């Protein structure tokens, strides 16, 4: 397969088309607008629908409608726009509708800025909107992985009838890397016989997002949490990189994981043995492997482009067994290999 040099945002867009995305509803916001631009050109060529909505709120409810009609649907945005979509994401989870949502996150809070950041981690993995629900969250680290996880996102959304967030950042969206489009052969999916398409001779169907009877709603919540339990058992993905028997376990995802790989390599030249655990699925979170590797290493160092968010999940996984240190840069700043390595050496006394 041919390698193509592509910008992350363009690559996600092309992968969505190849994954069979039928409709895309967008709204411009930096640093992800190229997704809309690319799809406005390409979707009509494929006989698919590109549509620019009047707001992020409208676009998520267009996604809701098209997903209810049984189609593969995507929307994309960044920080502030994703906040506006949160109500709709809660409705998607409640109506058990599959949809893919891309967040090329930027510095926050507020309008923040347009520099890369990981400060939407809590919002993505802890639900984000109101009510008891979970969204599958994938954290790509390279443009190639953006492509691969876009294929996976559409598959998982349909498999579990649940929204899936691809949590990138402005760096991944804007950088160019060589990519190969190699659509995996996923196992067959059940027919969408629940879709709202008009009766056409069958009994009528409807999609609800409420249950006024508290017993009924609790029953429903128990049902979707059983689904989340299955997701936690079957869909955890992660990468382990670096040395056997490390003196310290590094944990980082996405853009930060790229930096941490350089840290692992440079540390090796200095005679310091490090290993990196990179979560690929942020929900479900790879807690068991983190717990195991943390105990082997005796010490954990979590690095993020925020004020400390995933570190809470790392601490829950480690459960006090070993010390967990944190280093974060926020507001669009990116941790450097040198600064990170200096902190590691300070902790290890080397």
């Amino acid at each position, binding site marked *: 397969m041919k390698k193509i040099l592509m910008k992350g945002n363009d690559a996600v867009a092309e992968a969505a088309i190849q994954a069979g995305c*039928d*409709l895309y*509803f967008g709204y411009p916001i930096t640093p992800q607008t190229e997704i809309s631009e690319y799809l406005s050109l390409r979707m009509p060529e494929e006989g698919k*629908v590109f*549509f620019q*909505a*009047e*707001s992020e*709120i*409208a*676009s998520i*409810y*267009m*996604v*809701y*409608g*098209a*997903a*209810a*009609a*049984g*189609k593969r*649907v995507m929307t994309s945005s960044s920080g502030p726009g994703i906040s506006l979509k949160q*109500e*709709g994401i809660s*409705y998607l989870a409640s*109506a058990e509708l599959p949809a893919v949502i891309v967040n090329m996150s930027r510095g926050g809070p507020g309008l923040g800025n347009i520099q890369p950041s990981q400060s939407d981690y809590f919002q993505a993995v802890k639900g984000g909107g109101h009510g008891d629900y979970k969204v599958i969250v994938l954290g790509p680290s390279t443009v190639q992985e953006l492509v691969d996880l876009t294929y996976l996102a559409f598959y998982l959304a349909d498999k579990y009838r649940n929204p899936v967030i691809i949590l990138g950042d402005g760096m991944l969206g804007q950088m160019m890397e060589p990519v190969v489009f190699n659509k995996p052969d996923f196992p067959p999916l059940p027919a969408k016989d629940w879709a*709202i*398409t*008009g*009766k*056409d*001779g069958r009994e*009528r*169907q*409807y*999609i*609800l*997002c*409420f249950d006024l009877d508290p017993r009924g709603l609790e029953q429903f919540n128990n049902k979707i949490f059983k689904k989340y339990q299955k997701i936690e058992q079957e869909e955890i993905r992660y990468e382990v990189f670096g040395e056997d028997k490390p003196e310290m376990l590094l944990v980082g995802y996405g853009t930060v994981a790229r930096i941490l790989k350089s840290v692992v390599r440079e540390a090796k030249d200095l005679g310091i043995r490090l290993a990196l655990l990179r979560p690929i699925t942020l929900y479900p979170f790879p807690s068991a492997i983190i717990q195991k590797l943390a105990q082997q290493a005796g010490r954990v160092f979590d690095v993020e482009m925020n004020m400390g968010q995933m570190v809470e999940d790392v601490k829950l996984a480690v459960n006090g067994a070993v010390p967990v240190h944190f280093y974060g840069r926020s507001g669009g700043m990116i941790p450097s290999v040198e600064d990170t390595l200096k902190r590691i050496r300070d902790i290890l006394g080397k």
Partner: protein
Amino acid sequence: MQTVFERPKTLINQPFRYCPGCNHGLAQRLIAEVIDELDIADKTIGVGPVGCSVYIYECLDVDFVMGAHGRAPATATGIKRALPGRMVFSYQGDGDIAAIGTAEIVHCAVRGECISAFFINNATFGMTGGQMAPTTILDQRTTTSPRGRKQDEAGFPFKLGEMLAVAEGSAYIARVALTKPQLIKKAKQAIKRAFLTQQAGLGFSLVEILSPCPTNWALPPLEAVQWLEKNIIPIYPLGEIKVKEGVPDAR
């Protein structure tokens, strides 16, 4: 024996949940009659709102997607773009369509989205217990305008139909009431023309249906009808507000 009146096929045989004197049941029955007459039940998809209107999915025998407060026009757009051959309608109250959902309905009309919106205007938030809506008329007392709606505090009643008529994309806009048999007949014709407008692909259509809310207006059903005729209709005049060239006749 000749049958002169029966339940429309599309109206599910069960009691309405609405308060005595409310016009939701009547409006939904008219929509059911029109769906039967146009023989479109098999290809029609309804989109629900939040508020008293929400119960429509229990009453009409067509496919439904229930959604968020005010967002039915966006959801309907998603469905229509996914399934362009289907008949898609939203059914919304004034708290839903004329307050939180204003942006979605305005842009639906501006785009000329081929959907039909049915808008029950009772000049109040019904389900939450009678609060002031953008459609509440001046001096009307509600639980959040206990001294009556004052223009200097809360502005003017919202005439959504007239506003949407300005949009180039809207093809058919009408305002009707259900207080008399001849008005009910006209209302049904308007609902039919809205669906026909959509079927002909002419653009956006909306029928605003003025309805009494006896419970929240604190009036007996008959007096609520009289109050609507005397106070609401002069502010919200009845009739076809916009009929684009080519909109088919209802008869």
